[in-house]
């Protein structure tokens, strides 16, 4: 073993069996003198790049590979509750047990398909509602005087800094059948019997729109604020009515902001778990809740992993579009 010479301490530890299998593998595969290599080559710039890079590789990318791996393994009653994919079958032979059963299971039980569709629908409608409320607000903020602008922006961000959970909790108090909204409406004589608002789709829309509204307003504002006002004036000088100017000039220009805002609401909302479990229906679960139940209640980790992988496949296209817009936005400022 060529590395023994360079790492006497490590090879002693290896011999005494005090090193985990991954380190043992790294030790066997590592080029000789890699620590020297790192010390001489990873100075300055490379070190600065390496620190966040390694962190994200280890804690963001590798976990997805593990989820992917576990989605192909079989559940069993043990800790951890899944069968290993690679097994040492005797001498130097690795048996790979690839098992598509979890994915087949997702297809056979309706629960999963309907939950996916329901989640996408709820997320899409919520994103649209956010846009309808957020666009006029972002537009009005971008058109106000600088002092008011910073006050308004502060007011948009402020609820976001308070606890998300407590804001959803506030809506329980408002929407309950003996809650504030029903009490006020009954006192005013608008209705005689309380309306059921909790545990409906309506409550979920409210919860999501309320929690994610800042994520819609801020990118829209960032876009609308940059618009060249002379374009609007030129359109007006040429005789366009305000509505036409808006539709033909402002709206097309703000398209990147709209897409960014919609995706910032839509993508996380598809996997939303807290809001539907507090405000939503009991008979129709969202996919985030299904995943959590598979994991925590059924302890079926492989199926939970397969649910997660399917959700990722569904979201990969929107995530890439978002990524494209985001990096274009950040590069364009230079």
């Amino acid at each position, binding site marked *: 073993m060529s590395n023994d010479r360079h790492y006497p301490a490590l090879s002693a530890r290896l011999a005494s069996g005090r090193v985990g299998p991954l380190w043992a593998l790294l030790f066997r595969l590592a080029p000789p003198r890699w620590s020297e290599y790192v010390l001489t080559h990873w100075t300055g710039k490379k070190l600065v790049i390496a620190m966040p890079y390694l962190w*994200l590789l280890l804690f963001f990318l590798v976990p997805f590979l593990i989820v992917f791996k576990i989605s192909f393994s079989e559940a069993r009653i043990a800790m951890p509750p899944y069968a290993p994919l690679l097994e040492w079958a005797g001498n130097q032979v690795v048996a790979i047990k690839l098992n598509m059963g979890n994915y087949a299971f997702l297809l056979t039980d309706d629960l999963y398909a309907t939950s996916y569709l329901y989640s996408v629908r709820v997320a899409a409608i919520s994103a649209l509602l956010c846009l309808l409320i957020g666009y006029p607000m972002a*537009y009005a903020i971008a058109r106000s005087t600088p002092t008011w602008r910073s006050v308004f922006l502060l007011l948009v961000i402020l609820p976001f800094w308070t606890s998300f959970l407590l804001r959803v909790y506030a809506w329980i*108090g408002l929407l309950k059948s*003996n809650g504030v909204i029903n009490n006020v409406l009954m006192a005013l004589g608008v209705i005689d019997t309380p309306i059921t608002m909790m545990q409906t789709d309506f409550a979920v829309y409210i919860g999501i729109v309320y929690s994610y509204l800042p994520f819609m307003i801020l990118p829209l504002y960032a876009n609308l604020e940059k618009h060249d006002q002379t374009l609007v004036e030129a359109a007006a000088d040429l005789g366009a009515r305000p509505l036409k100017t808006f539709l033909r000039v402002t709206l097309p220009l703000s398209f990147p902001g709209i897409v960014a805002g919609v995706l910032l609401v839509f993508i996380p909302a598809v996997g939303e778990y807290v809001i539907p479990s507090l405000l939503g229906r009991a008979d129709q679960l969202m996919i985030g809740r299904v995943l959590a139940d598979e994991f925590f209640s059924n302890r079926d980790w492989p199926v939970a992993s397969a649910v997660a992988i399917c959700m990722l496949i569904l979201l990969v296209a929107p995530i890439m579009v978002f990524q494209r817009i985001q990096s274009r936005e*950040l590069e364009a400022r230079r």
Partner: protein
Amino acid sequence: MRSRVVSTSALLIGFSFLYIPILSMVVFSFNNSRLVTVWDAQNSPTLKWYYELFSNEQILGAAWLSIRIAAMTASIAVVLGTLAGLVLARFGPFKGRTLLSGMTTAPLVMPEVITGLSMLLLFISMEQLLGWPKGRGVLTITIAHVTFAMAYVTVIVQSQLAGFDDSLEEAAMDLGARPAKVFFRITLPLILPAIASGWLLSFTLSWDDLVISQFVAGPGSSTLPMVIFSKMRLGVSPDVNALATILVLFVAMGVVGGSLWMHRLEKRRARESQLAASDL
């Protein structure tokens, strides 16, 4: 004129939507009745829910744990996120840059259940392979929080750096300053506001996180959102209103104070650059 009316009403409706629920929590935190939404006019306002809150050991302990985790998360995330933002904004093209920028924007939108699940499976595999981290608790929660919080810091720092051109840094280099000195003397002071808001944002994200913590927490490491969530599942209880009120008060003071400070900093910088220009 008509557009003025439209703008004003859009803001009015939007802000009442944002603030009425918060106000209702504040009001009902002083309510005497245990029924959270029925106003007991005879015995209210009362501070009894505040007393109850401050005698609840479980909530206080969880709050202290959350503060500690959030402070650690914010401090680590700020360092890593600043480095990543610096690399993306200033280092030009290098091998693997696209992957890095992908890994810093994807956590912004990734559904929390997926992040939580994948993090937990990572920690379990690592424990099997390396024997580290031992079990799950404060350490694993902090690592998971840092990973998504640093993405926000990266975006903030990167966009701040993209707003400045690099002529100051180049000038310093030309005068013979080493890269590390350029960073600490020129770049860091320039992006200090971004770093400050990144720290606060990371703190809030960590303090607020429920789903990821639920996946990666172990026995005895229940954060404040986890405790509140389990309380809420059992039914609403008015001391949560009191907690929300205190939080809103803190955040409002913090945000207003912070933005005043930023405003002053910006003003001073503008004045200094004016002075510098008049010296020439």
